[in-house]
């Protein structure tokens, strides 16, 4: 996981992205309200989100997009017109675990905001990222999607040719153009700045890249997993 985040940080760093952190115990405000998730949205239900006993309005963050809210607010406070950040970090979902689902996993969220950042830039950014991370043959494809905090919203697919296997399109991430309400909630003027945001599981990316069969291995604390990668220099 550390190795992967380093490589991701390096590639995004060269495209101008800094790295931001935020709390794992998050307020409903930053996890939902500022992200245009309405108060009666199903995502806030008990079955999707972990709530904290005796602390109403406190959740285990369900995405690192909560850090986006915080970073956009800082950006507005500092009067900046341009900012790019990635937020790798642990997130929590109250869902049954199996080989491809974990209740806790790492997410790579990110955003680029500026006077004229476009959806084409999101595509360009991911094309660069996947080519450098997965290999020269990687391609990017968008499909329509829906997220409260972006409009338009897209699914980001990567074309990946695993060594010795036929290429395939893989669903990797979600993204889109930040919803004006999200920019406004942070105190930014949505008529002057715009930007893209994205988020996806890091484990999923690594499972694809290294051929890891079970997502539960990542946070098992089992050193046999760490030793399962033959190091290539």
């Amino acid at each position, binding site marked *: 996981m550390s190795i992967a985040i380093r490589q991701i940080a390096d590639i995004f760093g060269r495209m101008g992205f800094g790295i931001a952190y935020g709390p794992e115990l998050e307020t409903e405000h930053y996890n939902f309200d500022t992200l245009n998730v309405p108060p009666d949205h199903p995502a806030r239900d008990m079955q999707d989100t972990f*709530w904290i006993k005796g602390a109403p309005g406190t959740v*285990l963050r369900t995405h690192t997009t909560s850090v986006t809210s915080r970073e956009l607010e800082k950006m507005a406070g500092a009067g900046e017109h341009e900012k790019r950040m990635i937020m790798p970090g642990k997130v929590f979902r109250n*869902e049954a675990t199996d080989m491809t689902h974990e209740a806790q996993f790492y997410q790579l969220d990110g955003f680029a905001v500026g006077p004229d950042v476009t959806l084409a830039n999101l595509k360009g950014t991911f094309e660069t990222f996947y080519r450098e991370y997965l290999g020269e043959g990687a391609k990017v494809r*968008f*499909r*329509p999607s829906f997220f409260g905090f972006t409009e338009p919203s897209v699914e980001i697919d990567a074309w990946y040719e695993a060594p010795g296997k036929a290429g395939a399109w893989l669903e990797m991430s979600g993204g889109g153009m930040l919803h004006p309400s999200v920019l406004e909630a942070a105190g930014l003027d949505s008529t002057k700045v715009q930007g893209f945001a994205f988020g996806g599981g890091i484990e999923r990316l690594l499972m694809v890249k290294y051929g890891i069969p079970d997502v539960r291995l990542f946070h098992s604390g089992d050193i046999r997993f760490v030793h399962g990668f033959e190091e290539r*220099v």
Partner: protein
Amino acid sequence: MKVSRTWLQKYFDELLPNAEAVADAYTFHAFEIDSAEGDELDVKVLPNRAADCLCHRGLAKELGAILNLPLAHDPLREPTPHYKVEPCKELSVTIEDVKKCSRYMAALVRGVKVGPSPDWLKEALESVGQRSINNVVDATNYVMLDLGQPLHAFDAQKLMQKDGAYAIGVRSAKLGEKITTLAGDAYELSPERILIVDSNTDAPIGIAGVRGGKAAELTQSTVDIIVESANFDGTDVRRTVQALRLTTDASLRFQNRPSPELAAYGMQAVLELIRKVAGGEVIGVVDEYPVRPHLAPVSVTLSRINGLLGSHFVIQEVTDVFNQLGLPYDVANEAFIVTPPFERTDLLIPEDLVEEVGRIRGYDAIVPAPLPNMEGTPDQARFRGIERMKDQLVEQGFVEISTQSFVKKGEVYLANPLDKTMPALRTSLEANLADALAKAKHYAPLLLPPGESPKLFEVGTVFPKEGEYLELRMTEGVPAWGENAQTVDNLSIAKLEDYGKDYEPVQYRPGPYQPFSLYPFVLRDIALWVPPDTDVGRTTSHIRENAGELIRRVDLFDHFEKEGRTSYAFRLVFQSSERTLTDEEVNGIMEKITGALARAGLEVR
């Protein structure tokens, strides 16, 4: 939402392309396809379109827009149905709270003949995984699947008439009020639940927006029916579904807030279909419609569309999209003013229209563009500070692990833990790290040379009641850092930004993952007298070559010289990825190795 291609075809004069092309059209311009089998497609309608697309008409409209095929007929664009304008003397409707029910239409139909449905109706329902019940119930289900409006039919004769009139009411349940549904399940309700009642007796006959009640169930002998086409509040319905753990096709649709305008179209279609398949005469229709929705026009400019998408569309390409989607619009000075039709409750802001243009034209039309250059260096200082700490430890032979945040006991507890045995958040990494170390020691012979013991560390968030922080914890100290060096550190207060500012984290390039075996491993030692200057590497390979495919490690763990002779001691680790190895099996391999070494002139001690 399960749809049938044959059913969709009813909306088009032109023949639809094959199932694969239809699936692709949805996938790249509207919705993911969960599965496609023969004639049946399972379409994953997105939440913002579930108000109008959980039905064949909505999905046909989308498909028509994507493929640029006009609909042969669109039931929602036909004139608004007109019902008898004079007050209906035989039926009345009262709504207690208009926030919970914005519209309630009821129709009294006399003289129906309940029986089996005609084949076409049965087949249509079965083609999307539904079961045929009887002609009247099937008609209500068919229209719901066709237009998206949930409908229900009550047996009128099971309701009370007062002064020759039936009375339907929509009201909150009383505390502890009981109802048995059509499925035969009994529920005890709280006042948050909304009921449909026979107002003449105040008896419940249905749970609003979820399921009808047993009390007014249709039977073979039913002759007079009351048909409901209503609109209930999505949040109320969702809470009811959760409270009663009862999801139905109707509740699924109401949760997504279809327009109350749709109720009239649903009523018109279902009365027409009931007349066709079950006969009868419509005596009257009551329409209580206290709250009417208002959809405002939405404007967007061409420059906003291209400015957000990074595209180069021209006016014609945009108006084509609106035409194909059937969105009425005006154009003035490169600005488009769109008046959404009633069912498109999702079109509220300019960016919603940008999305319509982007997806219908296709996101493939968007050419990837690199981000413009930005001044200054990106701020990764804190990250690099943390990674520098990790690199220092790796240099000292430590291995980084990651463990679960949920534990048995802590200071902060989850209100709704997934695993009831792990209800708390960890206050320290200590316990998890100790468990991991115990496990690591057990597997050490498999992973590390003899004599080396595993050293672990973890960097993770911990949650004492004073507030979370990032902890670094190691299983032992680093001698090189001095005797008093700690094995634990609070990285949230450490000045990591300065420490990391100019640091470049070491980059590794791991190879593909090799799954580890779940079966036990077996250790064997072998000691040899060897001639002086015998090469360790060659001896190791010699052992490996004769050990077969079950050998995992060969490590020299001891050597000494005595009376001019040299002794080597090797530790061998055997493991299978398919089974537990037996002693006999490993003994056999050892004999083979011993024999081979002896033939090579090495004396096994």
